[in-house]
Each structure stands twice: as structure tokens, then as C-alpha cells.
């Protein structure tokens, strides 16, 4: 279960707070997956008591105004930090993985593809095993339900977190001659990005996920008892 509470002493009206929360939730907690299971109790709540306000005029109310936009973005970044901590936990996760899907007609479709990769048990076990099994990634893209995908426009890369050269695995539907030693080097890192370029649009989406670890199995094998 995900539970998240953020409290602030910012002065903000209820409609503006609602707007900011919805925006932030979509880009933070609704963009993570550990195991693909949705709980009965997931809740993300925010309370704002206005204690930081010196005067009544400082209340954030105008959802087009600069102060609202900054508050909304601060909240989104803050919530994203918390959401990422959940993925870094992952009941013993050893990898923190960003799934970045680009070149898609709509954000929703990009999210759908990212979500399918992020919840593939075989992708997640390969990540744990540090196996550059890009075939599993591609397979997940293919059954994501996004019908506009054109196989020979799809490219897949591993982007290492240390800023070193990315590793191309598949380019425009053709497999690269993958340097397995370099692939292992990247997969040994705690953090990496799997970038998928679909080449059929201009939208993109990110999801954060982790690997499946032995600890995950052990914890969930007898949680109730």
C-alpha cells in the first residue's frame, strides 16, 4: 500500500490545492510501480494550514498565477522525491530504474507503454540478474496495447546514471551488436534508465520502477501470517 501525507504552512485555497495535488499525483505517485499491484488503501493527502502567511493577501488562489504555478511545481518535485523513495525501497530492490518512453502520439499512450515495461516480471527479474535482455523490453512494448506502434521505428537504449555513453540495444527495429561487457557495466549500477523511442509522435512519459529481489519474494511469501 502507498500512503503519503504532505503538510505545508503555505496559505492556499481549497480549489487551488486540489488542482496542485491532482497535477502532482499524476506525475509522482501515479508514475511508480514496484510490483504492478494496486492496493485497497492507496491515499495521498495534503494539508495546508496557512501558518506561514503574514497577511490575507498572500493566499494562493489564482491557478494561472506565478505563485500557484511555483507551488504546484514545488509540490510535484517534492512528491516525486517521496515516490522515488518507495521505489528505492521496493522490499529489498537492488535497482532504481527510470523507464522513459519517447516519440509517442499522446502522453497516455507513452504512459501505457512505460507502465507495461515497468510491470513486466521478466524485465524486472532480468534487471535483478543484470542481464541485458532487451528482447523482454521489446516484447512488453509490443503487448502494451498501443496500436500505432510501428516495429521498424522502435529503438531501445540503456542510459547509465553516471553520464557515460548510452548503450544502444535496438535501433529502428534492428538489433545492435551489443557489447555485453558494457551492458553488464551499466546493469551493475544501482540506477539506470531504459529509454524507448517509438518514433511515431512527440509526447513522452516516465515511470520509475525497480527489480524483483529475493527479499521481495521472501517478504511476500508469508506476509499475512
Amino acid at each position, binding site marked *: 500500500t502507498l500512503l503519503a501525507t504532505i*503538510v505545508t504552512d503555505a496559505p492556499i485555497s481549497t480549489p487551488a*490545492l486540489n488542482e496542485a495535488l491532482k497535477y502532482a499525483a499524476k506525475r509522482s505517485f*501515479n508514475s511508480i510501480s514496484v510490483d504492478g499491484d494496486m492496493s485497497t488503501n492507496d491515499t495521498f493527502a495534503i494539508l495546508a494550514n496557512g501558518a506561514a502567511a503574514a497577511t490575507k493577501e498572500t493566499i494562493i488562489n489564482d491557478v494561472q498565477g506565478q505563485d500557484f504555478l511555483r507551488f504546484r511545481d514545488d509540490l510535484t518535485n517534492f512528491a516525486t522525491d517521496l515516490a522515488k523513495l518507495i521505489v528505492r525501497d521496493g522490499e529489498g530492490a537492488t535497482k532504481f530504474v527510470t523507464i522513459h518512453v519517447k516519440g509517442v502520439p499522446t502522453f497516455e499512450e507513452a504512459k501505457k507503454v512505460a507502465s507495461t515495461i515497468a510491470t513486466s516480471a521478466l524485465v524486472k527479474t532480468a534487471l535483478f540478474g543484470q542481464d541485458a535482455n532487451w528482447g523482454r523490453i521489446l516484447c512488453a512494448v509490443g503487448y502494451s496495447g498501443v496500436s500505432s506502434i510501428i516495429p521498424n521505428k522502435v529503438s531501445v537504449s540503456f542510459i547509465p546514471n553516471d553520464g557515460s555513453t548510452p548503450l544502444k540495444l535496438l535501433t529502428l527495429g534492428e538489433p545492435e551488436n551489443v557489447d555485453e561487457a558494457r551492458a553488464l557495466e551499466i546493469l551493475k549500477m544501482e540506477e539506470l534508465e531504459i529509454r524507448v523511442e517509438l518514433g511515431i509522435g512527440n509526447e513522452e512519459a516516465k515511470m520509475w520502477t525497480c527489480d524483483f529481489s529475493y527479499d521481495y519474494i521472501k517478504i511476500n511469501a508469508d506476509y499475512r501470517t
Partner: protein
Amino acid sequence: NSTAIPENKKHLVPTSGTYPNGFKVTGVHCGVKKNGQKDLALIVSDKPCTAAAVFTTNVFKAAPVLLSREILNKNSGQDIRAIVINSGCANAVTGIKGMENAKKMSDEVSKLTNVETSTLVMSTGVIGQHLPIEKIINGINVAHEKAVNGSHEGWMEVAEAIMTTDFFPKLRSGQFTLPSSGLTYSMAGIAKGAGMIHPNMA
């Protein structure tokens, strides 16, 4: 709980923070968890709050989800004073008694803050079991006495008290400045979650 944090996760747990004004917080052990670990968190605001929340879209919404949504709707997202959270038992798929227990939790905190229907409730843990409500009510009273304003230790207790299978407590805080008014404000956030995580809240 914090003593059990694995070495490779310790850097993710803050040792200090800057917390918002006007919130008293604490976490205690009330007896839901059998191992003596903290299992009840309380956050109480000195002033009435505007509030908003998103909830699971799972068809089987737990009692605290239904109740908190109802309270937010009834109050139009205003005059909320507190959040109470227990871990160890999710109070999910618990029928009428589950709703009654969630309401008892909310009402007990609201009574202590002297503001009716002003407390949101969250629960996490095992599904399909009833809350040991007497232990929780006692815990709420202990927590209300103990809650302190803005201390890092208090916030850490809150983060620990909502943990279930989490490997480490999740707490963040920060200070921000708005561009037009120049107002500086603070935020504090706690989260829990490790497994059964693929939220789609609305």
C-alpha cells in the same frame, strides 16, 4: 524501526529537516503490531487546514479511504485539523464494523482537537482483519499528549509508525519561496510503501 535500516539504504533517511509551522506530530506503539514497533502516527494542526486527497481506484476501497473521502466532501476540503494513521492492519474489506472503527478513530482525534469531523484516517497492513480499536483509541490519546511541534524526531516517529514491510522510513522536508509574494513556506512529507505498489489514485 530505524535500527533495522540496511546499510545501503541509510543514506536515504534524513538526520535533520526544516518543518512547517503549526503542526504537532508523533508516532507511538499502540499494540496493532505484535513486535512492539511503532504503529500509530498522529499529525495535528494548530489551525484549520485546507485539504485535498486522491485515493485508490481499486473497487474494494478500504474503510478509511471511504471515510476520508466522505469527510473531505462534507467539509468541502476545509477545516481539516488532523490525520491519524495506523499500520499493521489495513481495515480493508471489513464491512460495516470496519467503517465504524475508521469513524471511531477519526472521531477520537476530532474530539481531542475540539473540532468535529476534522480528522482524516489512513490504515495500512493486512487486509480482511478488524482493527483492535480499543488499543488504537488508547494510542490516539497517548499520541495526542506526546505530539510536539516541528521536531525532526517527531517527524521521524511519524515516518516510522506508518511502515509495514518498508526497509526504511520515508521522510522529506524543505523550504520554498514564492516568486510574486516572496512568501517563504515549508513542506514536510512522509510516505510508506514497499510492496503492492502500482497506484492509480484519483
